[in-house]
């Protein structure tokens, strides 16, 4: 900033000098621009162009787009080890592009609008709304099933449309969603967050200690998952097992009342403006005492604050009056667009990936669980032996959570286009936020959002998708 002021305060004599310097600067900048522009003319893509395969030209090309995995090691393994090996074995150059988690919907919309794009597109939630744009992935499901047995119920309910009898996506993985809590802080309070009732009892004390509970009520992924799961623990469901909307129920109203009380007594108003990263950051900074999130919290803490990581434990979702019903945190779903150029290889890639999922499971540091339970053997033993975990076997509970408490979005029905649209419009977090902020009563909110979701479902029902 000193430079800035110096320029402003210059004397007329100095101005003459500056004038000369400016001319020189313009001249040099012009030459620089010309050089850069000329250098870029020849290359198709960039200053130096995309790196070309140096060996023999591979016969085919497969293009994949997926999120930048929160574990950088996973992307390194996937891009540089797995994909290279698979490509060499299948005489194919595999190009993997990475995008930010928040940009997946926009990129998908752009590819569909252009009717052109990648051969494999990766979503983080079941993309049922794109059913008409994708192939039936049944063939891949059958190929994996022949080698690894039955598809997991979670993946089946997340990718199969019983109305159209079509697999609108292929799920390679899902991510369990544990409760993360600070053992030291909860120890001081003398309570363990095994039930929502316990969470509410402890929350005021934790907040008074400067470590509130953190469950987002914002338009973002983590809020969506945590609040829908909380609702189910109280007996509130978005739809029933026949995919009929049943949001306006006693269970939903009870969940809303509970969340309002929890917010007022044990949370802070930052939760209304959270992004998916906010609970991570607040927990890793030592501020939060409790959060619902995948293991990205503990894995990050292990890297940046190991002492704190040792104090963060994992538990299944707290039990409510309706029991303990959780959701996956992320449902990894690949789709093959109808307009994909290399459908044959895309199918083979997915079948091969899932059949030998151990590499993905381990390189994601147990973030990615296989959608076919038999694709990775001895999951519990592998979780127990995590070399970084303190206390030891900290991640063992993930196996229990995956097996018993992980349901699909839209449970007890299937993940469908109505659920997909409602999910991407973040209607459930909005409903909770309005009640917590006192803008609506629980009765009014349940009724209003039930009506909105019914309208969404009706639209998709009319289109024959629900």
């Amino acid at each position, binding site marked *: 900033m000193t430079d800035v002021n110096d320029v402003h305060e210059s004397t007329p004599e100095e101005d003459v000098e500056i004038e000369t310097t400016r001319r020189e600067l313009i001249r040099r900048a012009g030459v620089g621009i010309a050089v850069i522009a000329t250098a*870029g003319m020849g290359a198709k893509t960039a200053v130096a162009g995309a790196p070309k395969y140096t060996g023999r030209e591979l016969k085919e090309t497969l293009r994949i787009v997926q999120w930048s995995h929160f574990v950088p090691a996973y992307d390194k393994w996937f891009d540089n080890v797995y994909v290279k090996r698979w490509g060499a074995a299948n005489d194919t150059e595999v190009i993997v592009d990475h995008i930010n988690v928040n940009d997946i919907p926009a990129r998908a919309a752009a590819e569909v609008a252009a009717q052109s794009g990648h051969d494999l597109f990766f979503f983080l939630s079941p993309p049922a709304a794109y059913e008409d744009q994708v192939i039936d992935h049944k063939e891949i499901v059958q190929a994996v099933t022949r080698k690894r047995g039955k598809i997991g119920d979670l993946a089946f309910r997340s990718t199969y449309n019983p109305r159209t009898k079509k697999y609108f996506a292929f799920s390679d993985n899902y991510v369990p969603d544990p409760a993360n809590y600070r053992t030291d802080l909860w120890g001081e309070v003398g309570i363990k967050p095994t039930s929502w009732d316990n969470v509410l009892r402890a929350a005021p004390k934790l907040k008074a200690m400067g470590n509130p509970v953190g469950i987002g009520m914002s338009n973002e992924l983590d809020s969506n998952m945590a609040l829908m799961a909380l609702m189910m623990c109280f007996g509130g469901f978005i739809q029933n097992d026949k995919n009929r909307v049943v949001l306006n129920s006693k269970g939903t109203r009870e969940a809303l009342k509970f969340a309002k009380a929890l917010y007022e007594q044990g949370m802070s108003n930052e939760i209304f403006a959270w992004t998916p990263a906010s609970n991570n950051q607040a927990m890793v900074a030592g501020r939060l005492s409790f959060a619902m999130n995948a293991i990205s919290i503990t894995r990050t803490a292990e*890297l940046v604050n190991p002492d704190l990581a040792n104090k963060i434990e994992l538990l299944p979702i707290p039990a409510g009056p309706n029991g303990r019903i959780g959701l996956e945190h992320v449902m990894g779903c690949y789709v093959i667009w109808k307009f994909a150029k290399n459908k044959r290889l895309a199918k083979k890639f997915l079948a091969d990936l899932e059949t030998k999922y151990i590499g993905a499971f381990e390189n994601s540091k147990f973030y990615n669980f296989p959608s076919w339970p038999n694709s990775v053997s001895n999951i519990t033993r592998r979780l127990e032996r995590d070399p970084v975990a303190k206390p030891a076997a900290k991640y063992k509970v993930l196996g229990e959570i995956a097996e018993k408490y992980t349901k699909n979005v839209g449970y007890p029905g299937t993940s469908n286009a109505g659920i997909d649209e409602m999910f991407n419009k973040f209607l459930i977090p909005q409903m909770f936020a309005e009640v917590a902020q006192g803008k609506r009563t629980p009765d009014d909110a349940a009724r209003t959002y039930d009506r909105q979701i019914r309208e969404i479902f009706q639209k998709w029902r009319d289109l024959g998708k629900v």
Partner: protein
Amino acid sequence: MPTRRRRESVLTYAVVGPFALVLAFPFYWMLWTALKTDGDLYNTENNPFGFAQGSPTLDNVRFLFEQTDYLRWLGNTALVGAVVVLITLAIALPAGYALARLSGRWGQSLGVGIFLVYLVPPTLLFLPLSRLIAELGLQDSLWALVLVYPSFTIPFATWLLMGFFKTIPRELEDAALVDGASRIRSLLHVVFPISLPGILTVVIFSFSLCVNEFVYALAFITQSSSKTISTGIYTELIRGDVFFWGALMAATLIPSIPLALLYNTFLDRFIAGFTGGAFR
């Protein structure tokens, strides 16, 4: 008199000082965060304005240059910005001049109409443009951005230059014409040199718009080697739930320094360019 001057000076600094501090603070914060280790950054017991737990460090900068395509993103951004600026000038200069000299309601209405085009948000346009880019075979190519970015730089530049050209007395051109210069020659040797502040404003502003643009860069390019700064940083340094704060701050600070210097070097001309047509 000196006392009065001093008082004015003190008053000026009293007004401008807080603004300068507020505006400089993000840069200071970026620099400090870029030099911190994650352990230092995430520990709330540490003094946020000091260093601890291995800080200061250049690890974040090293990570940026060694583990990502950062240099390439910088190069791509410079290339796109430079070409777009040239295209913008080539079209907006004659367009702005023609509109400025078009007398009557038509010139004014056309000027306003062109500016309104600038206000159409990219979030509305990226879907139909995706189709166009695909039809042209420009997906994942920087030339997609070179083609699309002028759609928002040209309207703004034309409107700005139009206002600026209006401030130039017509008599100067007439004199050149009387002396035997052609219309083109009078433009090149009389009008454009006088309009340098306006042209510089267009160059800097158009370049900044290209550097900041996000939606088109996201929709048209996914290949890491072809990304520009705005999407490259966002994709590679924010992974799911995890932000690589140190590297993020270093990555945003580095390109902001030359831009800030450029703005400040030409500040007086920049202001003249923006306000050139304001009082007419």
